[in-house]
């Protein structure tokens, strides 16, 4: 019965936005180069022809202005989708996101809702110049008032963008840019689960790997390698960095007794720090080994010729698997 199509993650986000714009004429798209060009990654390609320049338009190159005007539009009753062109360009908008967008519902004691989605292509692995490969999600997960999510596959991309647009709260939507062209089956009729639920993508009994976004594929590769060595790895896509579905991770760890958390961002004061601390509380009597974190290093994102050394890969995950199994 299901209506399945094969789409890349980029096309799936495009289809999700298109559906949301068709369903609700208050949904607007704007940002740098999103209109005629369709964005530098072509995620919004074709929307201008269908919806016209009152629904999708290019903004000046002014990130604080993009987010600040998105807030004003939300106050007027619109549901803006603002694109930040690259992860490393989000910082000029930091005040408008952290001090305004995130806090206005609380400041107004609920009189104002902020149904704003900020789309951010993030992460490395594309050989880019500086400021085009960063993973700033922890800044925003640390900020009360924001919801922070990231899809890892086309089906989630299609549904999570629509769920984000429907949310009455601001959603930071992190798009794994090196996986934009990764294709997958999309069920156009049936949403999988809500955008803040974790999902187990591969069942296993020996070690749990929890991750999100671009690293999900890497974790699945590691699990495949481990299986050849007789090690059963359970892979969890947490999908949401605020809130985090700790219950789902804890259930898995109670079974495996071992947890590795991985992401591209540096591990110091990161999403994995939080998961390690929480799982230590929730699963203290079940853990057979300390929670191991595998991430980028705590250095500025390196020049492209070094990024293979920076980014965690399946081998680095296997090294961690060996370590947790040694306890």
């Amino acid at each position, binding site marked *: 019965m299901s209506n399945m199509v094969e789409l890349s993650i980029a096309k799936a986000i495009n289809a999700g936005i298109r559906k949301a714009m068709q369903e609700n004429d208050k949904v*607007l798209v704007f940002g740098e180069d999103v209109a005629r060009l369709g964005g530098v990654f072509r995620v919004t390609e074709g929307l201008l022809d269908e919806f016209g320049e*009152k629904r999708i338009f290019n*903004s*000046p190159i*002014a990130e*604080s*202005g993009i*987010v*600040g*005007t*998105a*807030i*004003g*539009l*939300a*106050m*007027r*009753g*619109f549901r*803006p989708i603002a694109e930040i062109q690259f992860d490393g360009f989000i910082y*000029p908008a930091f*005040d*408008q996101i952290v*001090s*305004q967008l995130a*806090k*206005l*519902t*609380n*400041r*107004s*004691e*609920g*009189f*104002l*809702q*902020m149904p704003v989605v900020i789309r951010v292509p993030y992460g490395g692995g594309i050989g880019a110049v500086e400021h085009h490969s960063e993973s700033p999600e922890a800044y925003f997960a640390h900020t*009360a*008032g924001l*919801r922070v999510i990231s899809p890892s596959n086309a089906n989630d991309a299609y549904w999570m963008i629509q769920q984000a647009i429907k*949310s*009455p*709260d601001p959603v930071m939507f992190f798009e794994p840019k090196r996986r934009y062209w990764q294709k997958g089956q999309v069920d156009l009729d049936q949403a999988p689960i809500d955008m803040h639920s974790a999902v187990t993508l591969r069942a296993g009994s020996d070690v749990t790997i929890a991750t999100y976004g671009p690293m999900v594929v890497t974790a699945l590769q590691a699990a495949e390698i481990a299986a050849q060595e007789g090690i059963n790895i359970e892979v969890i896509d947490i999908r949401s960095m*605020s*809130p985090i579905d700790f219950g789902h991770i804890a259930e898995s760890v109670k079974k495996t007794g071992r947890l590795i958390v991985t992401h591209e961002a540096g591990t110091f004061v990161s999403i994995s720090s939080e998961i390690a601390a929480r799982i230590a509380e929730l699963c203290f009597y079940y853990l057979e080994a300390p929670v191991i974190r595998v991430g980028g290093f705590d250095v500025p994102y390196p020049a492209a010729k070094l990024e293979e050394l920076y980014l965690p890969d399946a081998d680095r995950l296997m090294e961690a698997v060996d370590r947790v199994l040694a306890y």
Partner: protein
Amino acid sequence: MTSPDSEIPMVQLLTLDGEFSAAREYAEYAELIRELREADFLKFYRDMARIRRFDNEATALQRQGQMGLWVPAVGQEAAQIGSGYGVGPNDHIFPSYREHGVAITHGVDLMSIVKMYRGANHGGWNPHETRFHLYAIVLGTQALHATGYAMGLNFEGRVGTGDPENDLAVITYFGDGATAEGDISEAFLFAATHNTPQVFFCQNNQWAISSPVGTQTKVPLYKRGEGFGVPGIRVDGNDVLACYAVTKKHMDDARGGKGPTLIEALTYRIGAHTTSDDPSKYRDSAEVEYWKARDPLIRFEKFLRNQGVGQDFFDEVEAAGDQLATEVREATFAMADPELEMMFDHVYSEPHPLIEEQKAWLQGYEESLGGHTPETPGDDSVSYGGTR
């Protein structure tokens, strides 16, 4: 003693002696005053006096430990009341944090401002109802919200139809200090490129805490928008009629689809930046005295007396001020502190498990200690630097 560029022409409709007098080039503004009736003039004065009295009472309450901080607007009453009444009743206002006078022109309950500066909440009035949005403490941020709102009015076709029931505009308030913030420049740019129905109202009170206006700008502030495509005009910010007329004209134009305007109201912050500030450390008392002689209330009182308004009216206004002060004082002393749940409620519109968990934990913890009893802060409440 005045600002270095005080020779720049500005719209003035009242002489210092309270005579109505308009230069020929300001005839269109003067025309808007001729449409007013005595009741309007009395309302302007009543509200200027009311907000002055309220302001002084709020400062006293802060000194007695009843508020964490107060941000006086003394000296800026003409700029605020005049411009506030130049805004249409359905237009939206995006203030900074000193716009108590503008607030009363749109029916905001003054106690909600007291509540915020007392430290009982962060604002909390309903901007949909008052059309007066929440105070913005990070300078300049509200200008972008105003511009986004005005862009929305364009998209909805609420501009330039000529139907007074349909057309709307937006005004945003900020000070001379805020003009240095990038958000103000970005707001000019978005406003100009979208031709938004919008007025930028800059109250140049000449001091950003201890920094004189020359720290923020090399050009007169009314020119700050020109490079972005937002034309500007300077008005005498201590002349309530000029502030009314200039605001009304440019809000009407904005509603009619003529795009954004920057208004610089040249005024003076007679009081401290906040109750935590000590202006005697950085400015001459002679300068303050010069501006006190240009007090907007005195000038408008002269105008009203010239118009034949009798002493009875001024007595009535003074009595009303005393009554307001008493009411504000009593309501402040009676104001309950918030319940602990307020810290957690409305962080999100839909439940967030971390917030729910922490709220439940604190409730349980307080319960174990015998329950949380909201208290009234005493004189020992901590003083802090507060807003810029």
